[in-house]
């Protein structure tokens, strides 16, 4: 991190994404004005038409790399930022748009656009980490407000942010949720998904669908085994791992294994 300088300059950049993660910053309604007293928002196009040229102390990057242009842009962003933080599943794992990585992007283009030649897109959607070194990652689709505020206060006080690396299961216990997997037999990716959301889905009687991506050392095979026991087909299990973090290495291996087995059986 850069030496203390008051106030630190924050920039927010967007690649291919839905804007949800950067909206999380504006959603800190109670804290927003306080935060902006300690930070200079130097570039945040969604919220401001005032743009201050880099360098920046901190860049929050939302979205994945899907165009040649963005491939160049992320290099420029890295070069002008002391601390680069990727925010959300798009930036950390490629996002839902990485489903193209499992398909033929040419066909996608033809499916959606009558004149596909006007559309320029790379064949893959890739996380920022594949292009430039990343200092901190915030997971989730979208990121959690609490984790964002923790990150900002850590940056302001020059300490490491406290971001848990256990699984959603641990958060369920903390929240006092009844385990949907054990008590109701509801398929739930909680055991293999990184904590951070506060175990929202199980609190609403729903299985986790993995929007915070794989937890450090997920035991995917036993998770898959359990999903089969609950009656899910290989095709279904493959789809379960193919959502907002489909291109993360762990979820990718799980979905590809299931898809292969599904075809050969």
């Amino acid at each position, binding site marked *: 991190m850069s030496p203390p300088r008051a106030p630190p300059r924050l920039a927010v950049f967007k690649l291919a994404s839905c804007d949800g993660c950067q909206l999380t910053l504006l959603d800190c309604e109670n804290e927003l004005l306080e935060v902006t007293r300690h930070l200079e928002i130097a570039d945040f196009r969604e919220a401001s038409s005032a743009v201050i040229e880099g360098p920046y102390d901190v860049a929050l990057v939302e979205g994945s790399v899907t165009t040649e242009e963005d491939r160049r842009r992320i290099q420029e962003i890295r070069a002008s930022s002391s601390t680069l933080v990727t925010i959300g599943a798009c930036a950390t794992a490629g996002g839902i748009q990485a489903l193209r990585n499992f*398909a033929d992007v040419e066909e996608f*283009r033809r499916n959606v656009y009558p004149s596909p030649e006007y559309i320029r897109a790379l064949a893959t959607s890739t996380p920022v980490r594949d292009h430039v070194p990343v200092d901190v990652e915030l997971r989730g689709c979208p990121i959690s407000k609490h984790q964002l505020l923790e990150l900002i206060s850590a940056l302001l006080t020059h300490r490491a942010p406290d971001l848990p690396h256990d699984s959603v299961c641990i958060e369920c216990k903390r929240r006092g949720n009844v385990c949907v997997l054990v008590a109701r037999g509801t398929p739930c990716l909680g055991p293999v998904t990184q904590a951070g959301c506060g175990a929202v889905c199980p609190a609403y009687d729903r299985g986790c669908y993995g929007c915070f991506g794989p937890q450090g050392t997920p035991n995917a095979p036993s998770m898959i085994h359990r999903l089969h026991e609950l009656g899910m087909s290989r095709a279904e299990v493959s789809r379960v791992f193919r959502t907002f973090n489909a291109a993360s290495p762990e979820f990718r291996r799980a979905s590809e294994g299931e898809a292969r087995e599904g075809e050969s059986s």
Partner: protein
Amino acid sequence: MTERTVAVNYVARVEGEGALRVRIEQQAVKEVELRIFEPPRFFEAFLRGRSYLEAPDITSRICGICPVAYQMSASHALESIAGIEVRGPLRSLRRLLYAGEWIESHALHIFLLHLPDFLGFPDAVHMAEKHPEVVKQGLELKRVGNQVMEVLGGRAIHPINPRIGGFYRCPNREEVQGLEAPLEGALGQAEATARFVATLPFPNVEEDYDFVSLRHPEEYPMNEGRIVSSSGLDVPFERFEEEFQEQQVPWSNALQSRTKEGRTYLVGPLARFALNRDRLTPKAATLARELQVPAPVRNPFQAILVRSLEMVVAIEEALRIVRSYHEPPEPFLSPPTPFRGGIGRWATEAPRGLLYHRYEVGADGIIREAKIVPPTAQNQARIEQDVRHLVERSIGLGDAELQDACERAIRNHDPCISCATHFLQLDLQRD
């Protein structure tokens, strides 16, 4: 100087990425191109091969500002295939969730994106230095909208609780009643907002819009209704694709919509208000009379006033539902078996306007084809016209002022460019 180009390379305070290019020759506007360079994300393509039950979660990721709209249009369209009709208290809960999104999204646009234009600030943070109370009020309204979404949806962005047939879990009475006091507070603040924005200096502009929105027999439209227009259209929403056509333009990643006769049209708050004024909730109706809001509002700058009135509508509706809430017996309806598949279409009113979805699903529950027409794609061609008229009126301005004015003309319509499912940079060329 015979040729002049004015360029806005990045339109700020809109959701997503866009640019504008205007070419002027011999003092006449030759071309206006609203470019959406938001990279394409191919939702319609990768929905193929997914289970119909997954569509509400997947399509919500098209837009982080109005995820509920995508969840609602998708759920209704797919429920029509599955033979499910969500009625009674579950339907009310959906309306409450949608109202939460309207409140949050309108508060975001009114206070954080649009108001700085009128008060002369680059953003809400700078505006807060001079007008702290106004900004705090806006953030509070936004917070209440989010609170409704958190209770009903589990979280405000990409709610996890809605599903085909209803919800995973219905909130209990205490959880819902907890919303009453914040909503009551918000109602007063929303009324004060409308009174305040009515006093803003509006440029004297009238546009001849063809308004298009849903219309419901009793309610201000959200989840359902017929498609009506100010030029006399009145058809069931299933006919959307026969009445409106999308075309692709080389300069944009978003498809543009026109009526089948090839005319541009406008969806969103101005359109809903023009076509549903008699469906306003009581306090919103009183306020519209008190503030002498014209019917219809044809001045795009006054969209901020109409959004404030719609915020009052959404809060009154939310309060009505909260006060009469009883937990439904079942959180969701299951499809009757066997599932036969078929084609389903639906349109709902997203905060930015009509949002149409169509799906074709096989008997195996797998989506074969998906089509999504977001509000901004429909407004894109009409926004270009607004900009053209503005440049024609203001051709004497210097480049910097003209660029600024163009950006304002675009922001009037709160374009949400992230929805480039299949969608801005200002580049003004003068001869």
